[in-house]
């Protein structure tokens, strides 16, 4: 059983579980919307400012929503100790981790698919002509978020106060990602939309570093 195939099975399981209830997805989207609306009360968005603050707000909403959404990833497996069942199967721990990372990536992406157009409407930003480039930025940023977030979900699953611990561990770590993602997004929403190669390379580098680290450490991560 190759790791990829095993990860695929786990991914299918995660998707099936989530789409049966859709609670997590709905809650994530609503929460991100709440953050966006709250910000609009705190900072009155006029056209010029929305170009400046918009991208930052968007990514903060994603980070906050993400750190709430990523918690159940491993916490849920503690019901009926199903993680043990997965660990006893002849699959590598990375397969389990990868399956969950991919699942979280898909969930997060679905949430973003809803949020970005809404955000564009609320802040009167045009998405014309930048859609594909924006998707690239979103993909790279979300990947970094879900890789690190899923790993920390596994870490905090063993701790007390895990709902609070996960954001505490995750958000400081993600500040480079935040900067890179916001800058990339901002350059796309600028007067002359352009793809910032430096920041994209940075995002890709960030993803590679932490994906590699997760792969190297997954056995210790999932051990009893």
């Amino acid at each position, binding site marked *: 059983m190759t790791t990829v195939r095993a990860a695929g099975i786990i991914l299918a399981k995660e998707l099936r579980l989530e789409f049966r209830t859709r609670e997590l997805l709905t809650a994530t989207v609503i929460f991100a919307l709440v953050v966006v609306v709250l910000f609009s009360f705190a900072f009155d968005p006029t056209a010029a400012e929305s170009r400046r603050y918009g991208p930052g707000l968007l990514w903060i909403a994603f980070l906050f929503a993400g750190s709430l959404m990523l918690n159940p990833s491993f916490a849920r497996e503690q019901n*009926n100790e199903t993680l043990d*069942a997965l660990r006893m199967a002849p699959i590598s721990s990375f397969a389990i981790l990868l399956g969950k990372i991919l699942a979280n990536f898909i969930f997060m992406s679905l949430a973003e698919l809803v949020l970005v157009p809404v955000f564009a409407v609320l802040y009167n930003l045009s998405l014309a002509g930048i859609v594909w480039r924006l998707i690239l930025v979103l993909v790279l940023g979300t990947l970094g978020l879900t890789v690190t977030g899923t790993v920390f979900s596994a870490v905090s699953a063993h701790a007390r106060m895990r709902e609070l611990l996960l954001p505490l561990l995750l958000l400081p770590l993600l500040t480079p990602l935040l900067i890179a993602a916001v800058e990339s997004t901002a350059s796309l929403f600028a007067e002359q939309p352009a793809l910032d190669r430096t920041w994209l390379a940075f995002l890709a580098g960030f993803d590679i570093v932490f994906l590699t680290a997760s792969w190297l450490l997954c056995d210790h991560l999932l051990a009893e």
Partner: protein
Amino acid sequence: MSFHNVEKRFGSLAALRSVSLEIRAGEFVALLGPNGAGKTTLLRMAALLMNPTRGSVFFSTGAASEPAQSHRQASAFRPKRAIGLVGHSTLLYDELTATENLTLFADLFGLSDIAGTVAAALEDCGLASRAGSLVRTFSRGMRQRLAIARALLHQPSLILLDEPAAGLDRHGLAWFSARLAKLKTDGCTVLMSTHARNESLDLATRAVALAGGRVDNDSGSAGDPRALLAALRTEQ
């Protein structure tokens, strides 16, 4: 399978203190002892779910003996295929149906003819009529039956059972004992923990009693377990 001076600590709590045990293939071992004696920990260690704090666990398949490390990848896969565990919890996903649960694990274990195997297993444990229902809707007894079916799905040769009779009604218990008898005749090794008497114990070839994390009494591979078993309370 053998345990050499195995010790397991959880912080300042000692679950197992220096356990040495050798279990031969084909033995049906009844693991006895009060709650907190370390039975669950021993079983989980045998299932490769955790490593001992000290000491080691060995698995032999035929002549070769390889140390069991739940970390190591390739070598850990082989023993994993041969082990089935019915644990304290059901190890089932409540929000999936019975079929989906079994299919998932059949898939992960790389079984051929998944649909057929799953259908047969459900038929066998009497849950075929509820195959499409979420496990959440099952009664305790039904969940336990499904948990047992799940553990035996990939036809393991080492079967670890942690108080498997808990929650089973008379009907389920009868099915379970029959199933165990079949496993025994097939030459599987069984390690079953229990703290009360039930009919499946009649199949036991050996009894090991744990107390306070140590082996208190062992009827031995060649001995007669009935003396130790008789000391158990009768199941209500």
